[in-house]
């Protein structure tokens, strides 16, 4: 404190972020601005994309150190870590994505799937996009764990993608999360041309029979059965699938309403804020401004496309096998992106035949796709984890 005033001022200026801002950080701040625009103006999955974008902005402010860990000295904390560092632990330790799945479980009605279990095959076929993108990513030079994380974008399931990436390739969390949520928002633009290209007008006009009602008992037994089968076949999927099904049994049991409500509202919202901001905050300039990010964006788009094609093609096959009772358009809903992809099936179908209501039928493959990509995630985790 014995320095003259002007020196103190110079020191102070040197401590500002302006003096340390790199052009890469400036670019990243610009990118976060674009994402904020997409989230607010274009409403691209704003619940996730807005926190992600703001987290990206915060993480690229020089010297702010919001993602920096604590400085330890002889087992004692000498300087506490940044706010986002602590919140990020929930992602790093694999806690937040399963909790979001808990909430999704309480909001998902598997009734249409139970009324027509064959929908499960469509939900499986649409996961082709995951493995196709994985394969292409390997060819583009990504390592196995990286390729797996990129492939999961094709699952069209944000929390699954974040969960797999945080375990297998945390350095890609930023671009993968952004790609996953952006393409989920773009489903109404990506899917229709592919669906039309792969189906005939006659197929698209098929009207499906009304679904049978599903009893309460079936709906309660379903989450137990899926947890058992899924987690016994693929133990590594237990936390995602288990929480999804715990949420669903909360919903269908009708006896724990207050837990169900909290899991799907407050708990999910709190976790979403923390997850979004901190996933965004992993996207610092060094990791994000690479050619890899461009590859990921491209591969993600391909993954969505292949998934849509896979579902639609199996839909065509099932249409044939069933003697024209199944409209192949519901196959594309198997990518998940609940409930957007099911609505796309509805809209595309209705354009050909204004009296065609596919929404309920498309919800079957749609929710099957969530289970399908959770299982694909389990495959990757058990191979590379």
């Amino acid at each position, binding site marked *: 404190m014995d320095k003259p005033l002007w020196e103190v001022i110079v020191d102070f200026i040197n401590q500002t972020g302006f003096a340390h801002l790199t052009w890469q950080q400036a670019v990243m701040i610009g990118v976060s601005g674009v994402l904020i625009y997409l989230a607010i103006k274009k409403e691209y999955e704003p619940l996730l994309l807005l926190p992600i974008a703001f987290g990206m902005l915060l993480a690229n402010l020089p010297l702010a150190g919001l993602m920096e860990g604590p400085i330890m000295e002889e087992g004692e904390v000498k300087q506490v870590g940044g706010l986002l560092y602590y919140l990020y632990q929930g992602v790093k330790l694999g806690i937040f994505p399963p909790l979001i799945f808990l909430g999704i479980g309480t909001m998902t009605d598997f009734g249409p799937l139970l009324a027509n279990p064959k929908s499960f*095959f469509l*939900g499986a076929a649409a996961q082709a996009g995951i493995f196709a993108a994985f394969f292409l990513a390997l*060819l583009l030079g990504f390592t196995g764990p990286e*390729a797996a994380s990129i492939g999961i974008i094709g699952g069209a399931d944000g929390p699954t993608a974040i969960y797999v990436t945080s375990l297998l390739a945390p350095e890609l969390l930023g671009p993968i999360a952004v790609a996953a949520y952006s393409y989920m928002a773009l489903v109404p633009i990506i899917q229709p041309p592919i669906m039309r290209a792969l189906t005939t007008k006659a197929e698209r006009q098929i009207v499906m029979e009304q679904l049978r009602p*599903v009893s*309460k*008992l079936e709906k309660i037994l379903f989450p137990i059965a899926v947890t058992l*089968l899924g987690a016994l076949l*693929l133990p590594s999927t237990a936390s995602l699938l288990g929480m999804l099904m715990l949420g669903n049994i909360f919903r269908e049991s009708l006896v724990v309403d207050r837990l169900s409500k909290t899991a799907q509202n407050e708990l999910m919202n709190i976790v979403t804020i923390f997850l979004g901001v901190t996933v965004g905050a992993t996207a610092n300039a060094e990791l994000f401004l690479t050619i890899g990010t461009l590859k990921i964006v491209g591969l993600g788009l391909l993954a969505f496309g292949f998934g849509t094609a896979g579902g639609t093609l199996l839909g065509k096959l099932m249409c044939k096998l069933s003697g024209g009772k199944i409209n192949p358009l519901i196959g594309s809903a198997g990518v998940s992106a609940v409930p957007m992809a099911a609505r796309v099936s509805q809209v595309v179908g209705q354009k050909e035949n204004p009296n065609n209501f596919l929404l309920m039928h498309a919800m079957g493959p749609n929710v099957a796709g969530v289970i399908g990509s959770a299982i694909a995630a389990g495959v990757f985790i058990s191979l590379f984890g």
Partner: protein
Amino acid sequence: MNILEILESGTKIMIIGLATVFIALSGIVLTVTLISKAVNYERPNKGKAKTDIKENSNLEIKVAEETSKIETQAEDEELIALITAAVAASLNRSTHNVIVKSVNRITGTGSQWSKAGRYEYISSKL
């Protein structure tokens, strides 16, 4: 790894992966079908009624946020009926288009824990 090895291992994983997804989901399809058979063998007509009711209801007003479970205790049903009538009257509609899903009494009727708080009310009715 050279490109050939990558191709080979990538193909393997693709096959294993998609196969696993199909096997898992097929297992689920099988189980679900069995469950459905078992359940509907014993009780073929259940679940129908509920759906019918739903189709009748063009309009669902949720007076209070909480409960999604329709209260079945007589007292509540009476109250709900009353309010339904009142709302319908105000709206100039016939009652079978309007369903008052629930009326919240003091802090959440659905909850087990809140029952303690209601004992005064209960006792006054006994």
